[in-house]
């Protein structure tokens, strides 16, 4: 399965800031944000870079960075 959409930005978490609330996971439409024991992970195979996780994170622990 290949990405059909261009992602200009991708999410990056700052696990220091993260308060483990899990909202990014709850609200990611693609199911590509996951709160694990190892902190928040993103599945960059399928993440569409929409930025909802960033928008919903209560502590601004996620930021969107330019894709290469």
């Amino acid at each position, binding site marked *: 399965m290949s990405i059909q959409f261009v992602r200009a930005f991708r999410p990056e978490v700052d696990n220091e800031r993260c308060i483990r609330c899990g909202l990014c996971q709850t609200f990611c439409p693609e199911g590509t944000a996951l709160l694990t024991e190892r902190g928040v992970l993103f599945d960059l195979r399928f993440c569409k870079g929409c*930025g909802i996780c960033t*928008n919903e994170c209560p502590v601004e622990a996620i930021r969107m960075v330019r894709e290469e």
Partner: protein
Amino acid sequence: METDRIFDEYYEKSLIQGGNLCCPGCGGPLFWRMALEALGPKTIVFGDGPCAMCAIRFLRVPTFGFHFSFVADGATGISAALEMKGRDDITVVSSGGDGAVGDISFNKVSAAAERNENLIQICVDNEAYMNTGIQKSGLTPFGAWTTTTPLGKESPKKNLPFIIAQHGVPYVATVSISHPADLKGKLRRAKEIRGFKYIHFVSPCPTGWRFHPSKTVEVARLSVETWIWPLYEIVDGTLRLTSKPKPKPVEEYLKLQGRFRNLSPDVIKLIQSNIDGKRERLLENDGERIVF
């Protein structure tokens, strides 16, 4: 890779699979993940076509569908086949867009409701014909720009949940992705009831509503908090509001979206007063039987 494996397991559990064809930030896939987490794997989803399809084809439960003009009908057939085979452990879901459920196939939905077919009918309502390029539907809200209503839609949004409620079906509910617990609870309830259940989901659409994809959940939340899209359920004809937030001004909701850009302050005032009236009626009837 480790991460890939972790995610694959998660998808399995959530009953979705990565790589759907919806636009970034589309409300559809988010709804489906939440819904299937509530309904579980013994679910067959009937539906296809439109934007909904983009998500449906990526569900990890059996799906089957025809096109735009086929809503509820196939689900009725599947439900009948399951009954014949004695399979009452499987939930049949019928899904369609606002154009499909509310316009072209509304006779079918209405008739299935009247016959009280044993299925959950879902409307994934992005308030226009999106997949064909943002044309107006009956469920497009008053004032909204679409390619076929360049000056804003003239007639108000068809109030589908209340219209269907008047069919006397056992369960009707509105849901929002901004309120996941409420959403999942309603789907679980629907699953337990025999007969026709109707779930109306207003699906924020960054592409057609013209907002930045990162705002999807925010827009959904505002739709609830402004009482533009109040959350309620109608159980056996009795209304129950499941969220009664302090009302925010509708303008907060409208101004986030490009489709409402051209509304004059007067029109916004009109919308506000309509919403105020609606809210009052809803609050007055909270806990009351509203089906005649």
